């Protein structure tokens, strides 16, 4: 067992108590949101698969709460904590969070937002997480706490992002440093995108909030505002994930990017350039979107995978290069040298696999012609859970396992158990994703609880295909397996946060790591990264071609008036 020389652990432990309390506040609420989100997800899955009867209105409320809690509050509280932490630890000369009172105000504002959003469901709102205001025509007031929550979240995020930027910028202004490390740079870029998301959030949610308060007559263009916001919301946690991969791999192996810090900064900057203009593909089913816009939207969307692929190649090539310097041989043999018994390594490894799977299927959906086949079907949750659960959430959990004990002084709970969970989670995801994607190809809608569509009238009666129910069973089994694994993770994180017994578990600084610092075999090849991308792109070709072939066999000719 090698003692770690982790900069992340050392830097976190060296933070002052005020900063530690601030970060623990963000991470505690993030874990609470994750726990709630899992409960709501379990209820949703059970209702959808018929495991137990659940009234339709309640089922949709559970689905709405699941989306709101996970997509907004888990992912944004945890990001807020990490962006502040990385800015403070990785900016030379920073040492602490700048403008801490503002960061606390941001925390309180975000928490108020969470309470407001969640309470709106107990007040009877019928909105799902996308907050489509057209659903509120009968009683707009049902949505006021829902939108208020999102507006408060946006405001709180803006404050936190400002603090993170100030933390990184202050040492430069003071002349303590000349340039940022790649991680400081990434934290600033990430904060910049958080600010963009906050502005987009205010733009999207203030009009419906005013409408529900009776302060304006109508809400125009919500679909477009939501799409712009939602797109940023996709890629913020994605960028956060690859930044954390970079940080965590440095910390558990000692490797540095063999491409140099400047290249890493360029790659992180690409997110800023590529993310905002590629939001059109969320609107491909909208009937008023011009054909030219659809085509341009598809073409732009091709670029969205580029920065994530680049970071993946940088990390994998660097790991391979360092492992070869340690004697790693064979095309894949070096992978065995990685510290897989470390729960962080296992989680990041499987997160990369899941992210690749999600990437393959997401690239099918960016083609506007295929929206008519797959959008609004279960294909969408089928693919995005690979990203949000298997890639993004798993990475955040891995980082929390590393960081929370460093903040609390507690130990890491059962690392041997935690190191096995990512594989079980991936099995659950595989079932959920395979079932969901197959269901999508069969036209199963994504937000339906009663799939039988039964009516007694013999003329009106038409059965939903039997296979729909079968696929729901597979999806349900996968959901419950995922929920069980995530519940164990939550339990472990709660132990690390609040346990009274500090002697149970393993000192996080003593988790199994390798120490490869300073020795990269740059004269040797590093093919695994490029070959992985080749395999991924080949899979994209395969599933895109499959989708076109299925589309061509749907017995409806559209616009073929002369036949």
């Amino acid at each position, binding site marked *: 067992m090698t003692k770690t020389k982790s900069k992340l652990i050392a830097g976190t432990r060296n933070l002052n108590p005020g900063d530690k309390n601030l970060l623990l506040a963000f991470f505690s609420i993030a874990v609470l949101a994750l726990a709630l989100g899992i409960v709501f997800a379990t209820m949703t899955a059970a209702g959808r698969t018929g495991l137990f009867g659940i009234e*339709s209105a309640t089922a949709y409320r559970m689905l709405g709460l699941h989306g709101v809690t996970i997509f907004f509050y888990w992912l944004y509280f945890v990001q807020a904590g990490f962006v502040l932490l990385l800015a403070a630890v990785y900016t030379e000369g920073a040492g602490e969070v700048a403008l801490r009172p503002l960061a606390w105000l941001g925390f309180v504002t975000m928490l108020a937002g969470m309470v407001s959003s969640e309470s709106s469901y107990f007040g009877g709102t*019928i909105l799902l997480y996308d907050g*489509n205001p*057209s659903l509120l025509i009968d009683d707009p007031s049902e949505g006021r706490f829902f939108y208020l929550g999102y507006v408060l979240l946006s405001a709180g995020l803006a404050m936190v992002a400002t603090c993170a930027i100030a933390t990184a910028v202050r040492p430069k202004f003071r002349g303590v440093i000349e340039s940022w490390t790649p991680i400081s740079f990434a934290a600033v870029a990430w904060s910049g995108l958080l600010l963009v998301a906050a502005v987009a959030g205010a733009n999207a949610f203030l009009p*419906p909030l005013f409408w529900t308060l009776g302060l304006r007559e*109508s*809400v125009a*263009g*919500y*679909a477009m505002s939501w799409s712009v916001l939602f797109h940023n919301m996709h890629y913020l946690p994605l960028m956060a994930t690859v930044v954390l991969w970079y940080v965590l791999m440095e910390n558990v192996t000692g490797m*540095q990017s*063999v491409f140099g*810090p400047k290249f890493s900064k360029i790659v992180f900057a690409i997110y800023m350039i590529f993310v905002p203009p590629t939001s059109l593909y969320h609107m491909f*089913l*909208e*009937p*008023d979107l011009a*054909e030219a816009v*659809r*085509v341009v939207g598809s073409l732009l969307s*091709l670029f969205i995978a*580029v*920065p994530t692929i*680049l970071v993946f190649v940088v990390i994998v090539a660097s790991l391979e*290069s360092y492992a070869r310097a340690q004697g790693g041989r064979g095309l894949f043999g070096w992978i065995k040298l990685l510290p897989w018994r470390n729960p962080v390594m296992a989680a990041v490894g499987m997160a990369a696999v899941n992210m690749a799977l999600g990437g393959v299927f997401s*690239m099918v959906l960016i*083609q506007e*012609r*295929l*929206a008519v086949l797959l959008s609004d*079907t279960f294909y969408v949750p089928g693919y995005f859970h690979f990203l949000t659960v298997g890639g993004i959430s798993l990475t955040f959990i891995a980082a929390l396992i590393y960081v929370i004990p460093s903040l609390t002084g507690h130990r890491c709970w059962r690392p041997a158990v935690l190191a096995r969970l990512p594989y079980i989670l991936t099995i659950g995801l595989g079932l959920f994703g395979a079932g969901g994607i197959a269901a999508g*190809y*069969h*036209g199963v*809608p994504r937000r339906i*609880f009663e799939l039988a*569509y039964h*009516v007694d*009238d013999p*003329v*009106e009666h038409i059965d939903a*295909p039997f296979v729909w129910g079968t696929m729901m069973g597979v999806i349900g089994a996968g959901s419950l397996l995922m929920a069980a694994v995530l519940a164990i993770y939550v339990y472990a994180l709660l132990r690390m946060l609040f346990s009274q017994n500090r002697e149970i578990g393993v000192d996080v600084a003593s988790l199994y790591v390798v120490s490869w610092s300073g020795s*990269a075999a*740059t*004269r040797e090849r*590093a*093919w695994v990264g490029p070959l992985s991308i080749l395999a991924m*792109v080949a899979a994209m070709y395969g599933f*895109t*071609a499959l989708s*076109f072939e299925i589309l*061509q*066999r*749907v017995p*409806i000719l*559209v*616009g073929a*008036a*002369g*036949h």
Partner: protein
Amino acid sequence: MAEAAKPESRHFTLRPGFAVFVGLFVLTLYFLWAAYGAAPTSLSFLAEESAGPAPVTPMAGMDVQSASVENMAQDGGGAMTPDEFEEITLKFVEDLSLPDGSVQPTREWTEAMEAARGDGAQEEMDAAGPADAEEPIDVYLMAMRFSYEPRVLRLDRNVPYRFRMMSMDVNHGASIRAGFAGHIMRRPAMVLTEMVMTFSERGEFMIYCTVYCGAGHDQMKGKIIVE
């Protein structure tokens, strides 16, 4: 930060230029799109005639702003208001209902309605729609919480139908399960859209809502019988 090795001493797989090349490799997906006729090029050798998006056309004169509460506040202001659409749809159902309750659209009814309207709107729509030899037969489909009207349509195979659709309250979907896949369509509230569809196989196809519209969303379905 460890010193990065000088480029000349590195294996080419560790050079930034190669990493960028790998990163951009995903863009080659464009060529597959082009092969299926889904990208601006003439290389569509894998495309069949039926491939392609649903060219949904908002009715002439309508200011379409999808998924907007503003739409619900408007009273039309274009080629057809929601009230007019409801009126003509109910007439469509009343005139063309069969004894079993299903509705069978006919060319005679379409021509009679065009003649009766005589307000120029049809010419505008024709100009916007496909200009093939055989004029499509009109089908009116109204979506509302939580049903369609008419509930059952009886259509002929290989005959083009111009579906005129409107969601009367909130946003809905009017997707059709045909073959073993779905043909997914969104229908924003209070926006009249039209689309010409030809069914090439006989069978019973389910129409179902794929846009969450409230607690009764999963009860919302209809049926198309193609004979």
